[in-house]
């Protein structure tokens, strides 16, 4: 099977090529079959590869599949080759499986779209690039995937191109992430200049022998990679693009802006964990940024009115958790949270999509209500997703992955009680904001007409992903709950174990208990505040302080406002002032002077003999004087 693994990224690209080059001669059913099928087969191949990989008999911890050389200039020689290990296979599996279900969902969800074919072409292209990103064995190929998914994200955010707003949101997403990408590019130049290779594993080996922990080179390398990751993963200070990216169709938000692409930064840091271990200050920065982002995004999610924006801020916040885990060296905990998050966040988006569709593109949660009965499938799947996001103890996947992160922020060498406290506060906000949505949308007064009943292509993905968002957590449980460590065991060949002090059973239990109580109390508070319209909130919002805070959080802590003033306005001002190119006025100035001189001197040409005679006389005198006196 391992000789066929190149099919995993190749099939989605093939799907893209067929759809892109065939013009518009397919029926929608054929388009869906190609679009969904290519990702589906790719998912099957990925799963088979994964099972073969797990067979304990094979001691191989990685497999490199080389397709060919890309180019080679004096040792700068990226190859087109794929690196399969536990980490990249896990990523590829999630990308293809979740990708497949979202494609299946889209086949029905997008059926009324004119540009059905274009949609599937872009989606397939995205999956292909995403797989290149996670499977690339060298930095340049990874960069190809990295930029490729960025472009697909751009194309799909702006999918409904007739509304210019969508287009601007798409440009914003691409440009902001590209600021991070340039740092990643610099990181590649830096690594190549200092270590002389592009191959990721070789970089790790050479770095660990050539650089000592805390050395300046390691810090620079890790910083550059980190900035790249921040852009893609929408972390502070490059997070502003993600809420606007919700302009794209909902399946796009589910696939690209929740489950896969935005977690590329997490993958990149996990992939290059050696560099971060060599640069402790940078790793601390990772944890700090993660914590800040998860809190800021959490508070912003609390006051949003658009259901998709709540989920967008939530994604930011959950990736903040993953960064927190990476920052304390809990590499596999970060990937575990990526794993569960991919399922529960995509189910949240997809069920929200059903709600939005039923509400005729209304996304304001305050205009919804009582949808529990009318949209039972959406309700239950959204509830399961919310439970998992809120980390409802024992029965949800999110509980186990978030618990692992919180535990390590306390116990790992780089962890601290302060980080843990921040994480727990975030958990409280998380369950509050998501159950705010649950109660506002699905409970209370009914406000809408009769929605359309979703067909099987929508129900099956919802059900499967909801199921996965529950069971995915059972792969890894804390010591008090059976101590299953399947996920970590699988990843241990690719990711180093977390360095942590040994906690007593009672401390660990206590920590888990606190986290559980906190998340449940968030749900409870949500129930009291949003189950029925409550006067407390209105009174709070009416105070000057309350409304100011509300506005500030609603605007995502004002980053857009700030960036507009310090970057966009000056840039546009300078460029519009200089539209005619100031340098050109130098040359037109020369031309003008020449023209003026022409005017002046041609006036001396009067045609009168006596003027010329005077001229000759004056010239002769001056020449004589010149010769005599000098």
């Amino acid at each position: 099977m391992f000789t066929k693994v190149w099919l995993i990224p190749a099939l989605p690209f093939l799907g893209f090529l067929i759809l892109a080059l065939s013009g518009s001669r397919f029926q929608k059913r054929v388009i869906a079959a190609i679009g969904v099928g290519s990702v589906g087969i790719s998912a099957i191949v990925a799963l088979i590869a994964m099972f073969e990989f797990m067979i304990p008999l094979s001691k191989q911890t990685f497999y490199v599949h080389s397709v060919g050389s890309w180019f080679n200039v004096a040792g700068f020689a990226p190859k087109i080759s794929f690196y399969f290990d536990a980490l990249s296979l896990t990523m590829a599996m999630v990308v293809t499986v979740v990708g497949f279900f979202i494609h299946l969902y889209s086949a029905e969800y997008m059926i009324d779209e004119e540009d059905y074919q274009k949609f599937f072409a872009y989606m397939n292209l995205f999956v292909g690039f995403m797989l290149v990103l996670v499977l690339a064995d060298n930095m340049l190929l990874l960069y190809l995937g990295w930029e490729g998914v960025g472009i697909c994200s751009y194309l799909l955010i702006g999918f409904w191109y007739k509304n210019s707003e969508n287009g601007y949101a798409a440009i914003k997403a691409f440009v902001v992430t590209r600021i991070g990408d340039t740092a990643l590019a610099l990181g590649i130049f830096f690594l190549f200049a200092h270590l002389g290779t592009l191959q990721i594993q070789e970089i790790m080996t050479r770095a660990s022998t050539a650089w000592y922990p805390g050395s300046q080179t390691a810090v620079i390398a890790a910083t550059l990679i980190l900035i790249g990751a921040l852009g893609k993963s929408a972390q502070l200070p490059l997070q502003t693009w993600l809420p606007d990216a919700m302009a794209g169709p909902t399946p796009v938000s589910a696939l690209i802006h929740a489950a896969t692409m935005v977690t590329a930064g997490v993958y990149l840091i996990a992939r290059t964990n050696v560099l971060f271990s060599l640069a402790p200050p940078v790793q601390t920065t990772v944890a700090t940024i993660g914590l800040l982002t998860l809190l800021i995004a959490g508070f912003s999610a609390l006051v949003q009115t658009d259901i998709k924006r709540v989920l967008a801020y939530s994604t930011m916040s959950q990736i903040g958790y993953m960064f927190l885990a990476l920052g304390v060296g809990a590499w596999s905990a970060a990937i575990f949270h990526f794993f569960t998050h991919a399922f529960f966040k995509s189910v949240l988006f997809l069920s929200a999509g059903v709600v939005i569709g039923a509400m005729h593109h209304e996304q304001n949660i305050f205009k919804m209500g009582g949808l529990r009965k009318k949209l039972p499938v959406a309700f239950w799947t959204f509830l399961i997703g919310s439970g998992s996001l809120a980390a409802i103890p024992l029965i949800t996947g999110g509980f186990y992955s978030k618990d692992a992160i919180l535990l390590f922020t306390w116990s790992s060498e780089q962890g601290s009680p302060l980080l843990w406290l921040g994480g727990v506060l975030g958990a409280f906000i998380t369950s509050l904001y998501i159950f705010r949505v649950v109660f506002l949308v699905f409970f209370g007064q009914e406000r809408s007409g009769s929605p359309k009943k979703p067909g099987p292509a929508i129900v099956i993905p919802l059900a499967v992903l909801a199921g996965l968002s529950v069971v995915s957590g059972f792969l890894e449980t804390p010591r008090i709950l059976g101590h299953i460590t399947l996920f970590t065991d699988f990843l241990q060949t690719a990711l180093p174990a977390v360095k942590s002090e040994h906690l007593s059973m009672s401390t660990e239990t206590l920590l888990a208990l606190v986290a559980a109580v906190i998340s449940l109390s968030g749900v409870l508070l949500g129930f009291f505040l949003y189950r029925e319209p409550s006067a407390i909130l209105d009174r709070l919002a009416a105070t000057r302080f309350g409304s100011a805070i509300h506005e500030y959080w609603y605007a995502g802590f004002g980053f857009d406002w700030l960036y507009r003033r310090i970057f966009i306005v000056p840039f546009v001002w300078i460029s519009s002032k200089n539209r005619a190119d100031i340098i050109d006025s130098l040359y037109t100035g020369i031309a003008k002077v020449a023209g003026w001189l022409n005017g002046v001197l041609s006036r001396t040409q009067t045609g009168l003999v006596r003027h010329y005679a005077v001229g000759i006389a004056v010239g002769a005198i001056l020449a004589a004087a010149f010769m005599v006196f000098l």
Partner: protein
Amino acid sequence: MILVLLILIPFLGGIVTWILAGRDVRWSRWISLAALVIDLIGAIYLAFIAWSSSGMWLADIQLEWMPQLGISFHLAVDGLSLVLVFLTLFLGIISVACSWTEIQENVGFFHFLLMTVLSGILGVFLAFDLILFYFFWELMLVPMYFLIGIWGHENRIYAAIKFFIFTQAGGLLMLFAMLGLYFVNGGSTGTYTFDYFRLLENPVTGPISFWLMLGFFAAFAVKLPAVPFHTWLPDAHTEAPTAGSVILAGLLLKTGGYGLLRFILPLFPEAAASFAPVAMTMGLVGILYGAILAFAQTDLKRLVAYTSVSHLGFVLLGVFACNQWALQGAVVQMVAHGLSTGALFVLVGALQERIHSRDMSHMGGLWTSVPRMGGAVLFFALASLGLPGLGNFVGEFLILVGVYQANPLYTIPAVFGLVFAAVYSLWLVQKAFFGQSNERWQLPDLSLRETAMAASMIVGLVWLGLHPQPLLNVTRPAVEAIQASEEASRDASQQVPFEIKSANVPTVLESGNR
């Protein structure tokens, strides 16, 4: 002899085309096309030589011209020239094809001028005698002046004169430098010659070499164009007919880059090294300044014109970084830019033929009406913003890798050029094709001819982006020779203008062998 034919065939084709146009204008289009295809076959023959031999020079011909003055008719071709010859013929065919319906007046004369420009450009890439080079350099200029001045748009006379004066001023300084080189070299060796290879044997040193280098640099910097000598470009590109814009952006600018590679670095290695910080700074300024200006434009064609300033800034930066990565990157960047920007001009021209406007504020929402054109513009916009997998990425990335090795400080501002490139490229697509417009566009989408043009350029860019190795192999001997001459002078003079991380280079090469 094949080299002489390469240059002569387009010119003769042009004359025939002019004569026969009196009967039927269709003749002139088909004959031009045929002449270029025949020429292309000749170039393919040369490519086979390149493929089968390991030598650096693929063909060479030297005829006596004015032996008393040391002037000879000397043509030669190596990998670098060959690649640019291919680009010339390819874009030549494209410019005949894109004028198919656009040019209706004086069709025969138009094609005569077009073919003469192409002959001049081919001559520039093949001439190895300085006077002969200068002859071809001027030969490109005059027909181009008429192409802009006669078939151009509203402000064509102004643009044509501006173009002429700028290039002529640069060319004059180059002529002075050529004469200076002739006398200085002749004075020291005893034989007065304009032959490139003879001059190469004894590089000029000392302060005079700096001034001679500067003379050559003036001509190439205007052509490239380097900021602040770029202001002729937006006017000329915008006012020229589509074929003129394609040739200007795709080919004439490349003669500047070619000149830097062929003359500045090998003939004046020492002076070039000491001048490198200035030139690289000019390159950097060009990258950023061109990008900001591009974003500011409301005229679609002018926007595309300014992107050339930005992209060719990378070439200037790369040439003076002068290591394998940067030099190879500069070559790839020139070819990729020729394709991507040439294609954008073709498409903008096709759009202008349909809506009779280049003003982006009047556009918007065109995708609905002409999706195929929109898709093509989107593709080339993505190429121009440096999407990996397409040619421009390989060029820019190699240049940046090389510049980083030479001096990391230049790389940091340069990568921001990539951000700005994203801004103006996506802005262009957004303004023209997305959104909605008050006008209800009912336009014909790309015709078969236009689709074929776009498709061939798409194939070219994808090939350059995914498998540039054949091109890199062809140009490698030439690029290595250029770099060797530069390094030799650096070792000799010991006055290294900036630190090359030579300690790293061996490890790099080592890893390449793995």
